[in-house]
């Protein structure tokens, strides 16, 4: 792919990095929620689970906002953005 404009290349890589970060954070938070299931019970457990859910929501909000900021940035070649590369490679 050709990226002639330095600014749009910058936007593209910033967007890719932010998307990748969001993907990784979402996966990590998924793991937290999965690990929390059945680990403990009681009032304290419910409170803790509530806090974790709130934190997860906030983290993803921040990253979603950041992605939007990148997408609105000047020099963003709408519709021709490269996808973020996969974060890890499955290999035997």
């Amino acid at each position, binding site marked *: 792919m050709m990226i002639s404009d330095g600014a749009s290349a910058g936007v593209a890589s910033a967007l890719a*990095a932010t998307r990748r*970060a969001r993907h990784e*954070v979402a996966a990590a938070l998924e793991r*937290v929620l999965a690990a929390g299931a059945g680990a*403990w019970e009681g009032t304290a457990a419910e409170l803790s689970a509530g806090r974790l859910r709130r*934190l997860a929501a906030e983290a993803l909000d921040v990253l979603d906002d950041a992605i939007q*900021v990148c997408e609105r940035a000047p020099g963003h070649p709408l519709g021709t953005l490269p996808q973020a590369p996969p974060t890890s490679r499955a*290999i*035997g």
Partner: protein
Amino acid sequence: MVDPGAVAPLPDVPRPGALPTRPSPPRAGAAAPRRALPGVTPAAVASAWGGAGRVMVDLGRLRGLVAAVRAAGEVLRSAVRSLVWALSLLGMPVVPAARLDRVGAALDAEATLLAGRVTRAEEADGLLPARTPHRWRAAAEASVRSGIGDLTARAAFGRGPTATADSTVAQAAGRAAARLLSRAADQDAATGAARARAHPDARSGRRLGIPAGAGRAAAGPARAAAEHSALDALSAAGDHADFIAGFFDELGPAGLASLLTALVGRPPLPLGHRPTPPTGLDPRRDVPVLGRAFAAYSRLRSLDDVWLGQFNTLGRTDRADVVLLRPLLGAGRLDPGLLDRLGRLAFGAGREPPGGTRGRSARVDTPPPAAASGGLRPLPPGPGRPGATELVAYQVALLDAITVTPSLVAHFAVRHLGELLGVASVGALGLPVRTGLSEQATTAWSRLIATAGSQSIRRADPAGSATFVTGLARAADTAGGSSLPPRLRTAFVPALHTYADEIYDTVTAVVPGQIAPAESVGPAGALRAVPATAWRALLREGLRGGAMAGLLGRDAAAFGTRLEEATAERTQGWNRTPAGLPASPRTLSYLRAVRAQAFFAEALGDAADAVVREHAEAGAEHRRQQAVLLDLLGTVATSIDLRNPAGTFEQLGVGVTVVEVEAMIRERYRDAPSAESRRILADLRAATAAIPRWSGAYEESARLLWRRRAGDPLRPVTVTEADGRRRAYTGDPRQDGYITGPATDFLDPTGVPRPAAAMTPAQRGAYLAWLESPAMVANNDRLPVLAGMAGGAEPAPVPPDRVLRPGG
């Protein structure tokens, strides 16, 4: 909350509702301990002492949650860095990154909070099996319902003022509960045949043709109620040590054997099926209760061979009907000494490794030789006896129980390694008769071997773990290229991973052999004494399983990367030495890093050869298996950049699990050509061969320099040490502090280093340190040539990385 003083200390004061109740038969027997017994709230049910509300905790999962929250915090921090970079690139304010950072900090705080919970639960949980939460949960809830939690907890941990009184009462209550059971058996016998009185056992009538349980049916309700009450009391007592001691002391080994026979039942009689007699026992509820209590008892009393000899329903004193223990094995953590004894009974004495560390590890006592040699024997299978299937199930349960006993697993594994590999390879030959290990047994052994080699066992039992991995390498070397089941091969991977640093440190050393005082002698030092060929054989066998092959490759690469980083840090600024030196101080570590990868690549080649050989003359099914394994090994090979460990580490994934490998082999519906994989592996082998065996040349060159020192003196090197001091190295081992006395003097009377193989470990250690010292590295003028050859100007003949997933 119950005030301990308000509870009458007599076992027969009725306090209806004090025990967890269930809606079946009425309780019988005045001796039933009806008061709120000081049973235990399983401590993992940590009512945060004095805190609000009870908390049910599954320790294993909670630890997992802590780890997950910590990991999420890390990921968030890395996301913060990405965000800062991205926003700065766009010239935007970095406020969102700061917000994200705060979320990360909150996650860390939460992790700390949760870790505190884990610690508190662990402190409270001295006795409970952490891996069977569903089993204690019911009892815990029952004891909470009965409102005795507080008293229970205080008595159990000896914190309450009434601890001594409680102890006597609880022991008496335990005995009373056990007497209930024997009385039930007596009633049973009384209504049954008169001759059966001598053997309080439901089976005793069978020999006379009297239907089993006939007497029991007549005595039904009374017996059921008694059994019910006894087990109820045991359940409510939870893990109270005194109650349990009283209960099992009174019951005795024969009584326990009878109880287990009634609880689990035996295979149907030759006379055919009969309706099950009414009983107060419910295996689903009572087996976990009994198992947990028995596990606690095994740690309270030493259940020696005398005890085991009476553990049968035949009234014998020399037969252990160990198979009866099977349902109890998974319910709690048994005493390592008892498990060791059971292991010897089930699998024989095995072979102690040379220089083993018996006795060094905690709580594994050797049985007296007399008992080990004769006397005590397990009951063999036979009519009315457990069948072969039951025996295998018992062995699997026993192996699993040993697997979760950190102080025993490594010792046990190393003792049986030789036999295991022998038997397993016979089984894997696929002979028409059934030989070797059953599939379940192989899997259980694999779990055990994998656990013995794991990091957690290394932490829990360092000496045992080192002995195990040493024995494993030697056993794999001795076994040669025998055909082991793939699962067992995969079980070698954890050991290879855990000891990767030691293995590669050994195989890349300038001179091989045991050294001192680096790890001194003992099991850890014995690791160094394992020849490189044995490590190579173990690595080959581990790779032949195909699973996690990438992980092993990453270990080699990671060793090289870490070594180079450490050397770079240590030698920072050394290049500024005036009048430049012929060799960089970092060359030696570079050569060692390359050698580590070459060693791995050689083992990979060995594994591929073995796979090809193994399947050369086999049918289509084997060819599919071969193609899958070669694909997996080829995938690892493509990712190896022999001259660049860091690059390898980045390119290589950890690999697939053994279950995935098996699925791949199943799903292959046609013979896939494996020519491409073979070519890649051959290329890697050629590339490896091009890398010189530099260690001999290096050592030889260093000796030459030393021999010529009179005519051509070594150039002294002055370097800045890590502590900031400047230090001069002259190359003279005495002056530079490598030879400190006769023990470390590796020079012979003429001043020439002795052959490395003839040195003592202490001398070899000093010799190695001298060879690697700055003066010798700097003056070794053959080093640049060797490094040039290893670096090679020509591109590595390995094709660029590609993903070779089977079918992909």
